[in-house]
């Protein structure tokens, strides 16, 4: 069985073709990059709409199949930016009507966990999902993916991106902060906020920016910001591991590419006797293959949607999703 998955929750438009054996035949990603500032939902949606036809064509060509060979269409139904979600939902409905093949809406956060399990071989991990739009610690308990901890304000990727943007670090974003952090020597104390299992990143961000304006060394600030927010992430992940008594940790999302975060999580896992799993970078970032694979899991376990039911859910929570394939 072949499924074409469409991802479009934020700035990445992804198209992936996956088989029910878990083979990724092709995947294509088009990333909308604003000239300045953050993502404007409508502009991102416009960019996705203008590229989606070409991206689907490229994915089909890459997999060496035609539309007629596909058995299922999956799309990211949420959570995410409304205008972007609408673009991929519309495309999925059109493809389903055109080919007469079924379609299924997929939860974006759960797709990250499922593609991670598929590609790394982790069976039942505590997942730390960190990106520009999400920060969650997720684990499977009592038939659902439950959120053990999450940010109370901004996602950690957003915290790093905003810091990079406000201080003019180039290349913008977390990668720039990571590069400069390697040259940082001095640890400058920043607010460290862990509330139970939940996190907050607006405090350390504001304080780091204030210190920057006071003339503190940018390299030291990048170093300190990373050390502070990552330590909080690792602490909450460790709490979830201790609480659930699981032996595996999966790191995914755009921020998973940060080597310092990996190192810290690795040390925590080692001390606890757990194993750390990280999917290849292109499948940590938003991608269509994860949507296709999760769509296949759902469909093959009886999740069915009619075209008129295939709507988007901008605020679809991880723990609201029924997971028949792990029963």
């Amino acid at each position: 069985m072949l499924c074409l998955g469409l991802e479009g929750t934020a700035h990445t438009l992804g198209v992936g073709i996956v088989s029910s054996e878990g083979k990724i035949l092709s995947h294509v990603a088009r990333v909308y990059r604003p000239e300045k500032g953050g993502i404007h939902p409508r502009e991102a949606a416009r960019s996705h709409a203008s590229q989606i036809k070409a991206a689907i064509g490229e994915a089909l060509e890459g997999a060496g199949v035609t539309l007629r060979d596909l058995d299922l269409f999956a799309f990211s139904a949420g959570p995410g930016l409304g205008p972007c979600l609408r673009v991929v939902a519309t495309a999925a409905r059109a493809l389903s009507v055109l080919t007469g093949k079924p379609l299924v809406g997929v939860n974006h956060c759960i797709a990250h966990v499922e593609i991670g399990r598929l590609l790394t071989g982790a069976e039942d991990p505590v997942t730390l999902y960190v990106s520009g739009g999400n920060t969650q610690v997720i684990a499977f308990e009592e038939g659902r993916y439950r959120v053990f901890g999450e940010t109370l304000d901004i996602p950690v990727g957003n915290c790093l991106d905003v810091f990079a943007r406000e201080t003019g670090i180039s290349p913008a974003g977390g990668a720039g902060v990571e590069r400069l952090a390697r040259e940082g020597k001095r640890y400058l104390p920043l607010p460290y906020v862990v509330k139970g299992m939940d996190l907050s990143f607006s405090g350390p961000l504001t304080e780091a920016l204030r210190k920057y304006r006071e003339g503190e060394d940018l390299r030291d600030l990048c170093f300190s910001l990373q050390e502070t927010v990552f330590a909080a992430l690792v602490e909450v992940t460790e709490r979830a591991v201790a609480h659930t008594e699981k032996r595996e940790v999966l790191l995914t999302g755009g921020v998973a590419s940060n080597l310092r975060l990996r190192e810290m999580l690795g040390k925590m896992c080692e001390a606890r006797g757990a194993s750390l799993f990280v999917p290849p970078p292109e499948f940590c970032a938003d991608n269509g293959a994860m949507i296709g694979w999760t769509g296949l899991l759902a469909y093959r376990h009886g999740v069915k949607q009619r075209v008129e039911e295939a709507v988007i859910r901008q605020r679809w929570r991880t723990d609201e999703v029924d997971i028949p394939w792990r029963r």
Partner: protein
Amino acid sequence: MLLKRGAEAELHLEDFRILHPFGEGKVVVKHRIPKPYRVKELDLSLRETRTSLEAKLLFDSKRVGVPTPPVYEVDRKNMKVVMEYVEGRPLKEVLEGLEEGKRKEIYRKIGRYLARLHKGGMVHGDLTTSNLLLTEKGELYLVDFGLGEYTSSLEARGVDLHLLRRALQSVHFGLAEEAYREICSAYLKEFGKGGKEILERAEEIAKRGRYVGREERGTLLRDGK
């Protein structure tokens, strides 16, 4: 003997004699071990702050009428707190086996104790059913103040209630709503003026940045009142 290996500390059960040559009985030693993943400065400052703060909170909670294990020693060099061993079981393990009347009594106690703590200018910071111990005699103890704070802010108090509700929902699905309702009503009664505002803040926190739709937000607000 290692009692528990938590995420940030190890709990050891020791003879009282480690403190006093004529000591009898058992004590619990809570040892905050260094975390190899953190930079030294942050690791030291977190462990130091949490160790001394926890000891102070345990002491002050007792003063405002919240049962906590008495603290015997604070060792800020080795990051250890020595306290009395409370022979009880975590509420998490026993709650579901109790009869309804007993459960309700416990919910009311939780609400009352939490209100006293808050009125005393403190928050627990990590209130779950694992951090509530029930003794044979039916006494309820609050333990693990590692994330507690001295604060009277509406936000911190709201977060405390919110975390408790989340913990109930994630471990005791069937009982969560009933439990939280009872806890809130006892909390309100004990806290008195200003309590309602805190419960409302807890509701608001539950909806913040959490992908709850605007339509659902409306219903939640109505149900909350």
